[in-house]
């Protein structure tokens, strides 16, 4: 798999710390989604996703993030993306998702 995901329950800050490494595309976006859902099923809290080592993402991965954001927003929760590489930030800007996720 060209992607790995690490999820850590950050009790001190009361949020899920995700780190996504590698590439997210149509072949593994579903796995990404299941990891987010599993974390939220375990504990409903905000999510922070570190994109420092995310080299590639496209509409399938962005769709997972924004879909999850739409779900948890109803419960007053949010997702924040941190440390995106320039190419990832460009896609977030084009899609307009930067306004809610960065």
């Amino acid at each position, binding site marked *: 798999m060209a992607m790995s995901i690490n999820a850590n329950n950050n009790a001190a800050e009361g949020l899920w710390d995700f780190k996504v490494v590698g590439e997210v*595309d149509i072949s593994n976006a579903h796995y990404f989604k299941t990891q987010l859902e599993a974390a939220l099923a375990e504990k409903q809290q905000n999510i922070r996703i570190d994109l420092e080592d995310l080299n590639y993402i496209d509409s399938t991965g962005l769709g997972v993030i924004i879909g999850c954001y739409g779900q948890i927003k109803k419960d007053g929760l949010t997702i924040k993306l941190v440390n995106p590489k320039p190419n990832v930030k460009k896609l977030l800007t084009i899609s307009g998702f930067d306004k809610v996720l960065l």
Partner: protein
Amino acid sequence: MADVLKLTVPGKAEYVRAVRMTAATVASGCGFDIDQIEDIKVAISEACTNIVLHGGPEPVDYEVVFEVGEDTLSITVEDRGEGYDVEGYVEPVPGEIQEGGGLGIFIIRALMDEVDIRSEVGAGTFICMKKRLLAQAV
């Protein structure tokens, strides 16, 4: 005459990355800079993803053709799958929350210099996109 590289790709999710890697190699050989190569990688992945998602219930092979011109890289992605109604495509509003729903096509149009998309229900989908080398010098 332009150099032409043709690929026949199984319409499965796991092969989109192979096309993306090929596109990066071809674009690099053309002299595109890193930012432009990233644009091309995303655009072609979106086109392939579109075909994998809309090709039909069974994976359908599709063709990817790279044409390396003097100052332009043309990439055509074409299948004979189920196609979809292009007229019914609604361009998403940036920032509006959605999952899927035309975001891929929107991204292709934003990243490439020229984009031609034709699709017909029952006949397949044709996406031709071009990136010009000169665009980076402007």
